[in-house]
């Protein structure tokens, strides 16, 4: 029940979900497909952790969901990003970019040690 547990990985997963859902309203299966497709199968997301993550994001008020009918006429739960969720996504993206460029800078360091 500890929400801070495994924050790095969980945080990444949640960031990815927020990003994907922000593009268009989408159900859980759709998110799985989109993740495989967008990351060219690099991220093999453990499908089991997707649904708890969705519940968590909903509980925090960043996502909301409703039941709609798919093109194949089945009922599915569609998620969309709320206004606070969008603000959150922006902050997180900025943070991600800053830290990933820092990590990149470190990893690509080839100069001599000072």
């Amino acid at each position: 029940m500890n929400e801070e547990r495994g924050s790095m990985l969980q945080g990444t997963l949640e960031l990815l979900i927020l990003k994907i859902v922000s593009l268009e309203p989408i159900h859980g299966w759709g998110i799985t497909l989109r993740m495989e497709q967008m990351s060219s199968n690099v991220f093999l997301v453990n499908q089991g952790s997707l649904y708890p993550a969705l519940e968590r994001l909903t509980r925090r008020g960043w996502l909301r969901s409703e039941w709609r009918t798919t093109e194949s006429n089945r009922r599915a739960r569609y998620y969309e990003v709320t206004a606070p969720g969008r603000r959150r996504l922006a902050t997180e993206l900025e943070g991600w970019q800053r830290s990933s460029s820092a990590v990149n800078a470190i990893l690509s360091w080839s100069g001599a040690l000072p």
Partner: protein
Amino acid sequence: MTRPGDPSRGLAARVIVWLRAAFGGAQADREHQEEIRFHLDMAAARLEGQGVPSPEARRRAAIALGGAAQLREAAADARGGRWLADLGRDARYAVRQLRHARGFTAVSVLTLALGIGANTALFSVIDGVLLRPIPFRAPDRLAVLWETDRTSGTTREPASWPDYVDFSRETRTFGTLAAVTGLESSYTPPSGEPQRLSTMAVTHTFFPLVGVNAMRGRTFTPEEDVPGGAQVVLLGERFWRARFNADPSVIGQTIRLDEVPRQVVGIVPAGSDFGLDQLHARADYHGPYSGVGDVAVWLPLQGSEREYPRDTHPFFVIGRLTDATTRALASDEMVGIADRLEREYRSNTARGVHVESLRDVVFAPVRPVLYLLLGAVALVLLVACVNVANLFLARGAARMREVAVRSALGASFARLGRQFVVEALLLSVAGGAAGVALAWLGLRTLLVFAPAELPRVDEIGINTSVLLATLGVSLLVGLVFGLVPTMQALRVDVNETLKGETRGGSPGIRRRRLREWLVVSELALSVTLVLCAGLLVRSVSLVLHVDPGFKAAGVLKAEFTLPQGRYPRDYRRYPVWPATQAFTTTLLQRVSSLPGVQSAALAAAHPLDAGFTNSFVVVGRESEARDWPEISVRQVSPGYFPTMETRLRRGRLLQDGDDAASPLVVVINDAAVARYFGDRDPLGQEIRFWGMSRRIVGVIGDEHFRGPASPAPPAVYAALAQAPPTSGALLVRSSREPEDLSSEIRRVIGSLDPQLAVYGIEPLSTTLLDSLGTRRFATFVLGAFAVLTLLLALVGIHGVLSYATSQRTREIGIRMALGATRREAAGSVVRGGVFLALLGTMIGLAGAAGASRFVSGLLFGVTRSDPVTYLAVAALVLLAAVTATAVPALRAARVLPTEALRLE
């Protein structure tokens, strides 16, 4: 990922999440399942599209998603508010568990109900009597000004009117003083029977002094409490509501009290009479008032020295200390004033004053008793808890396997603990609820025995604060009991328990020892209580066996007050009061001729009414009278002596011929002979009071007017015809049923004077029991608690021995197979029980030796180390304990070796 300002962090948001989890949990769970189903369907469809056969596709899809149950749990966790939903599940599980263990549940709930119920009942008494605020302004500044009499050694006498006036005028330490006295009055409604009312006469200073305002109208004015002032009356709130339906227009109307029309000027709130009953009850003597619930009507006290001279003491004086003073300073000042009065007036010889705080006057007699009972009832709860702890331990042993299985399946220790606590809380709250019901019933019985000393009995009830206290106690008890099995669960070795039969291993023995110690301690506690109760019971029985000098059994009493209007009190022609004498003579004639009546008598005060005292002199020894205590004056019809079966020592009794026309004569009692005559012969001597000399013609044995436990005061008996009273008690000795006879007596009195209110009709033996007051109350309540704890302790012994026997079945079987007899088998069980009982009794008696000092103030005729009581209690408890071992012993005796050995 959480920061301040997160919507999930606000309290309101959290509450919403909890509520959603608690009430929408099932809905969310259904949605989750449907979502997962959709996911699986889609994933399987994709695999099938890739050529995987259908069942295999579903299998792979499911594997990719992970365990459905774990996923479901994880999703529920993520939704939050899990604990509340779990709590509900725990509660449902607990209810199921408790329903399976019906015997355990019933016994625990009942035991807790008894313990908690006893506490609730007593707490509501303490709350109503002691804890409620006193309804007066700054009650700690209020004090009672008693007069004292050095010759009789009394320290709580009411004051005379002139003394009150002098005290009021001269005091600087008291802001104001007020005089109060209780009366009886008879209210004649426009239609219906006359009703006797509790009445209080007060000076106009009383209500401002205590800080009570009229609810409607006003209180008395200075012009109203002077002789000849207006005939006005204030109504008490409860009387106003009951009789006048709370009609405000009653103000300004006239009501008839003792035949006198009085104008209603105001209504005073209930509780304005706080402490006045106790004030009267604590006085060494007082007038005819005997508090019966709250004061219905208030009259202005129109005192004067002419009507109430300095040698009569009917008035209670209450004062408010000024802010700048202390009670000690006030006491010094009043003693100084009293000294001056003593030098100035002959009637004030040997009189002083005694200042006591009102709070002490009201509460001092009952506070120690109530706290004693509070201590006792805490012990009841403790013993109940020990018993339940014992049950929990026994059950805990049986549940070790369940605990082991659940731990093995991954239940966390916290989760198990919570389960146990929820279960215990359910039990204790159920016990508390049942306890409130028991308390409600018990309280009614308890209040029947409430002594007159107990203030504010009307306000005792099970109210919110009592219920909150009960809830608190229940929750506390539940928490503690939840921890017992939790602690046990901590010790459970999952491997060992699951592996095999743990039988008679070391944890079992340890647990049995613990349970035996619990039983010993509860037995010790109950022995302590039983002993204290035993001392009280013995005291009460000794009090009741004191020969009070009269025989109460078989006598019915009825009281009345003759209103001045129809029975004029012409003191110039005293004792010739024709109307009064005609009434008493006819009444006695008619009652005596009722069938089944052996004898009837009239007295100004019945034999358990202390009545009043007077100063007097023995003619020829006037100078000695200075140092003499006052004498109780008893006005009786000649039939009084045979009716009450008093003993004649010397001379003769009063006779029918002793009337207003013949020489005035009196009879005195042994105590008066001893106090005033010593070795001299009292017969033929004359004593003088009320301005008349009367010759002593006889001596009778003492009657204990102040209750059997108090010594008889010196008394003089005068014949009604030579000393007519204004109020009286009819005493009838008969062989008839009291209910039957009392309605006939009412009818006789009604035929003589239809407007006369008759009250206090009861068998004199009831009056005798009531005179035991606090002692009887404490004995009854403590006795009930003691019996309760003893029963609980016996249940405890029985439980432990039964359990031990069932565990030893195999052992007993082996012994029997080897030739032990049934008697020996049973004997070993009884020996175990007797050992525990002996140990508990010893410890309990040692504890009682200390605890008995709390009841020593209530003892009569026994010391607190009374060996008879100790032996009797020890014998009783041991006998009871042996009886409690009977069932398990019989079970042991019936063990069949073949069965026991097969049992594996």
